[in-house]
């Protein structure tokens, strides 16, 4: 067994990513949605709003970082993985190579994390420029990394399960889009009606948003952190299993 079997998969993704980065459209598309939210909600609607004893912008930016890292870690991997499996057939090259299914998983997930971190770093820069209270704490960075890892795993799972490229958009509409809006990115989850709260707490991004805003870990933060770790492990194991059982 090759312990570094994941590296060629990661290296390939980075070669492709580097080429995409050189195109203006890629940079713009990674930035445009969170920047729109930042302007519309942060500077527009939220100018006179205070949440959790802080100005709205300071509340919003960590949420946008979480949302952006989720979107980019998940979407790029889900879409590329699905296309590679169903249309370009490059996935065959991986499964026919003498490496383990978990190596394929690790390589793809790390690549997804890089994409998620890249997009969220743009929001972090915007945060430093616009919010005087914004800072990067160890809890913030750890949660961000964990969030990227979790959603990149989910991206692989979607890429493996989706029966067509259109299906990946359907998964996104059902799971990712509601998470972006209801998981505490724009407003605290305690403002959500009691009836749908259990559903909100089933969404991993809710727990990311809880932990990423903590200045210091408390019981609530630890529980949410544990949920993120459990979800990440479960998604990684399930994704590896899907790759292992892949057959044409």
């Amino acid at each position, binding site marked *: *067994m090759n312990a570094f079997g994941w590296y060629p*998969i990661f290296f390939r993704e980075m*070669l492709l990513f580097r080429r995409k980065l050189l195109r203006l459209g890629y940079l713009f598309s990674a930035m445009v949605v969170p920047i729109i939210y930042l302007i519309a909600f942060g500077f527009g609607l939220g100018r006179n709003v205070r949440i959790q004893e802080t100005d709205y912008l300071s509340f919003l930016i960590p949420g946008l970082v979480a949302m952006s890292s989720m979107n980019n870690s998940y979407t790029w991997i889900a879409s590329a993985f699905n296309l590679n499996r169903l249309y370009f057939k490059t996935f065959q090259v*991986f499964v*026919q*190579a*003498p490496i383990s299914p978990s190596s394929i998983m690790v390589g793809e997930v790390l690549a997804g994390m890089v994409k998620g971190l890249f997009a969220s770093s743009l929001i972090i820069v915007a945060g430093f420029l616009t919010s005087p209270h914004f800072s990067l704490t160890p809890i913030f960075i750890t949660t961000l990394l964990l969030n990227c890892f979790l959603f990149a795993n989910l991206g692989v799972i979607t890429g493996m399960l989706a029966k067509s490229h259109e299906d990946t958009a359907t998964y996104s509409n059902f799971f990712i889009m509601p998470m972006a809006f209801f998981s505490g990115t724009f407003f605290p989850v305690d403002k959500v009606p009691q009836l749908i709260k259990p559903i909100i707490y089933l969404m991993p991004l809710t727990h990311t948003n809880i932990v990423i805003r903590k200045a210091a870990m408390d019981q609530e933060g630890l529980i949410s952190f544990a949920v993120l770790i459990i979800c990440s492990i479960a998604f990684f194991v399930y994704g590896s299993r899907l790759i292992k059982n892949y*057959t044409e």
Partner: protein
Amino acid sequence: MIEVKDLTKSYGNIRAVQDVSFEIRKGEVFGLLGPNGAGKTTIIKMLTTLSRPDAGRCMIDGFHVVEEPFEIKKRIGIVPQENNLDRELTAYENLLIYGMLHRVRDMKGEIRSALRMVDLWDRKDSLVSSFSGGMQRRLLLSRALLTVPSVLFLDEPSIGLDPQIRRQMWNVIRKTRIDGRTVVITTHYIEEAEALCDRVGILSKGKLIALDSPKNLKAMVGEYTAEFINNDGRLIQQVCRRREDALEMARGRDDGVTIRRSNLEDVFIKLTGERIE
């Protein structure tokens, strides 16, 4: 070297491969010939660990394909029917990643010789998306040879290529067997099977209906074929054991009778009543 026993695979209600058995000797060029949908690609996918058989057993170099896939993957090179190159990467990068996946030792040297073998060294830094179909097929072949595999699987290696490029491809395939490599080819081109294969297995509707050398297969059904158009305007091909029998058949027909050597398509028609298309 390769042993296939009672191999079966279904997709839903469709039996793609039914109880297929054959053996391939070391250093042999073995062809699977049949029309589209005969089960050729399904067999290749099962032998190369991409597809799991419903029943039966495949062994390569003494390793079980389903139970020891790692050992199999180390020993095989594959040219798939569908192009699975990374089009947004260069030829060199495609081979580099493949070489890393297969832990090729002298990476630069092996990539250089693999690309030179198919005359693509000068285009190593070009994106694959800028390559013609023929160049991409050649690159697929050089990628498969990069790991110096003991068995090379070629699934319709010259599909979609014009005749001149196809012959270039055949020359490269002929070179690959110089060092005693076993080659398994699927094709629906009669000429390709006859030009390259030591033995040919003929597949029809998922079943192996004949297996022998092209020469023996033709001898089995008759070495001469008389071709003519009958009164209904249909092309009739009559296989005969001797040239004299074919001439006898042609007697009395002065409207364009052709007598020629039989080919593997005549064998297929004789055995199944259908054409390879």
